[in-house]
């Protein structure tokens, strides 16, 4: 019942936040943050093994479902607080809560068509709402409508392709006629099985915005608040990939990935891995670095479709949840840097880490988590995914791929260690200041005066509190990168 409760609370709070965000933004955000915390409590209380029957289908909560719900809702609560601090119309918490509801239900259900339809229906809110309401360059920006339109079509289109693939696979022309994974000795069945797998990979590519289908994703990420990116891409894509991977592994079986299919999948993955990594290296604005790094993460996860072995699927689960948690922290860092210093290009951010040591510390933790070290769940998952797809050269490729975030995140870190530039110097430092408290009678006033001074103190320490929020997310990312997600 915890699963049902979690989904109900998340979808109720999410829809309430979305509907009231235009007329009562503060109340909507309060509902959203309270909903995130309630979902976190329910997720923490959820047993690792729980099953129920709804609509003729079993729903089973697993450590993965619980881990994803805990990590996403905890991160979302912090993102909601950051949204309060940054200001503007709330566009992050509501769609993300709907996303949590459909993702947990979709990962728990044993009916893949239900999962794909629900994920597409719930996931599109994460694109449409920030796209139409939270465009940073203003509502009249010429790229706003086309980008949101393409993004919505990509998310819904991935669901349509996924549904078509599932339906076709179960049709008389599909590979499931003799049961899951059976009859693959027949060339016709093998061909049908491979085509079904490739169709699902295409759906994943659409949903994740993989290269060469990335144009809308790149425009979207540069247009909206970085806080909206994790729900739309990191978590939303992760849930879709996990459902697609589960269907491919359980219904098609490992033999569906023949030589040709594997080569095509690895080629598509390498395209995103290499070009996404290079794009993150050459871009100077932090939103693009964030976006292309998420795209690169999805490219690594795609390698799981090239083998479909159970241990590789487990590695993909660990990889997707851990990398989404890390990228949530990175998105929060990007949003806070942008809100604090106004700039988002590296040339304008010289000395940001010196000026705000807490942000610097947070970024260092995120850097370690994103690159990983041997023995950490994230590093091992990446190594397993790459080695399974490219036996022989896997170790070398793993090091090369791990070096890419070291370079593009290292550039940001080195900018932070440079002498403090003019744009950064005029921004708030992020060091605690209690002037508001003293002005309100901190030392001599009554308790009521001190309580009254709290809002002013909070406003005066906005930058410091935002930096602490990023630090909390960075620690969470580091912990998930070390421990994984029960994959």
């Amino acid at each position, binding site marked *: 019942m915890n699963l049902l409760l979690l989904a109900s609370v998340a979808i109720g709070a999410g829809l309430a936040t979305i509907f009231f965000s235009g007329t009562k933004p503060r109340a909507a955000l309060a509902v959203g943050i309270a909903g995130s915390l309630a979902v976190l409590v329910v997720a923490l209380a959820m047993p690792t093994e729980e099953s129920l029957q*709804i*609509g*003729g*289908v079993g729903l089973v909560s697993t450590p993965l479902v619980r881990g994803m719900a805990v990590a996403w809702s905890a991160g979302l609560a912090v993102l909601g607080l950051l949204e309060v601090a940054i200001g503007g119309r709330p566009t992050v918490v509501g769609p993300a809560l709907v996303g949590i509801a459909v993702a947990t239900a979709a990962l728990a*259900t044993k*009916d893949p*068509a*239900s*999962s794909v*339809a*629900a994920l*597409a*229906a*719930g996931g*599109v*809110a994460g694109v*449409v709402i920030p796209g*139409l309401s939270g465009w940073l360059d203003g509502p*009249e920006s010429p790229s706003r*409508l*086309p980008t*949101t*339109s393409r993004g*919505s*079509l990509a998310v*819904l289109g991935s*669901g*349509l392709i996924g*549904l*078509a693939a*599932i*339906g*076709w*696979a*179960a*049709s*008389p*022309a*599909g590979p*499931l*006629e003799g*049961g*899951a994974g059976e009859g693959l000795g027949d060339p016709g069945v093998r061909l049908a099985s491979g085509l079904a797998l490739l169709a699902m990979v295409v759906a994943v590519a659409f949903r994740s915005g993989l290269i060469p289908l990335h144009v809308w994703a790149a425009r979207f990420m540069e247009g909206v608040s970085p806080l909206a990116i994790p729900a739309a891409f990191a978590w939303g894509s992760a849930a879709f990939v996990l459902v697609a991977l589960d269907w491919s592994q359980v*219904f098609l079986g490992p033999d569906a990935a023949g030589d040709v299919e594997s080569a095509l999948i690895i080629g598509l993955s390498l395209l995103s891995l290499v070009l996404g990594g290079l794009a993150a290296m050459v871009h100077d604005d932090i939103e693009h670095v964030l976006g292309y790094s998420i795209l690169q993460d999805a490219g690594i996860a795609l390698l799981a479709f090239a083998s479909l072995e159970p241990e590789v699927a487990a590695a993909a689960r660990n990889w997707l949840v851990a990398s989404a948690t890390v990228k949530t922290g990175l998105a929060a860092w990007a949003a806070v840097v942008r809100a604090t210093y106004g700039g988002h290009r590296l040339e304008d951010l010289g000395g940001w880490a010196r000026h705000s040591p807490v942000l610097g510390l947070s970024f260092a933790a995120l850097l370690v988590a994103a690159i990983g070290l041997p023995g950490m769940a994230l590093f091992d998952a990446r190594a397993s995914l790459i080695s399974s797809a490219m036996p022989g050269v896997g170790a070398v490729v793993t090091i090369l791929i791990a070096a890419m975030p070291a370079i593009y995140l290292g550039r940001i870190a080195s900018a932070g260690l440079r002498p403090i530039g003019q744009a950064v110097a005029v921004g708030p430092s992020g060091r605690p200041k209690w002037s508001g408290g003293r002005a309100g009678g901190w030392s001599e006033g009554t308790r009521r005066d001190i309580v009254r001074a709290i809002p002013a103190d909070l406003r005066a320490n906005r930058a410091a509190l935002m930096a602490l929020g990023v630090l909390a997310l960075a620690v969470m990312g580091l912990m998930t990168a070390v421990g994984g997600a029960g994959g």
Partner: protein
Amino acid sequence: MSLVLVAIVLAIGAGAVVAVSTRDAAAAPIGLAVALVGSALLADPLPSAPILGVRIVAALLAATLIRWAARGGPRQFSPLGWPSEALLATAGAVAGLGLAVGLASISVGVGAGPTDGPGPIGPGVGLPSLPTGEVLTSMALTVAAGTSLLVLGAAPMVHGRPGVRRAIGLVLVAQAVLLLRVGVAGPAVELEEIARAAFLVACAGTGAALAHATAVAHATATPHDGPA
């Protein structure tokens, strides 16, 4: 074959043709509503009352959202005209019937032409029997309606200008895929029916929100134009 099912398929096609081709902004959502409600009823036997209710509510909600978005936006209609769209829909339906017959022949393992007997098509899913000489089974009609909607909706969805016509195209394509999923792989379980309804409403909501934003942008760009 049931004449009622054939009539429903004809109503679906007619409604969809009206939705994509009419110059009257108010008529398009009505045509869409006919197509979507017809799709909800296209089953033999009909599903249980709660599931039927979910389907019809989703269909009407989707049409309502499109109706809301159609107000005030620029007029959009098919450049081909309704006769061409009707012919396209007919061609799509015939292609769908051919597809269904082909799948049925595979399912019974004959290789050509429809024959008797059911065939397993996947774990837990079954295709109804196809008596000799019988082409218009309920599944075949479902596939025909799906391909017909797919043909009508694809062009406005992919190549149409942003606005209500693209939203209608998106909803028609979504309904088409949902029909094809049932037509080729058998009935959905109850949970999937709910997810499918949510998906259809999400498609309509997304299309309506984008169309409304386009209408606002259009009104801002041409402040002297009255609503369409």
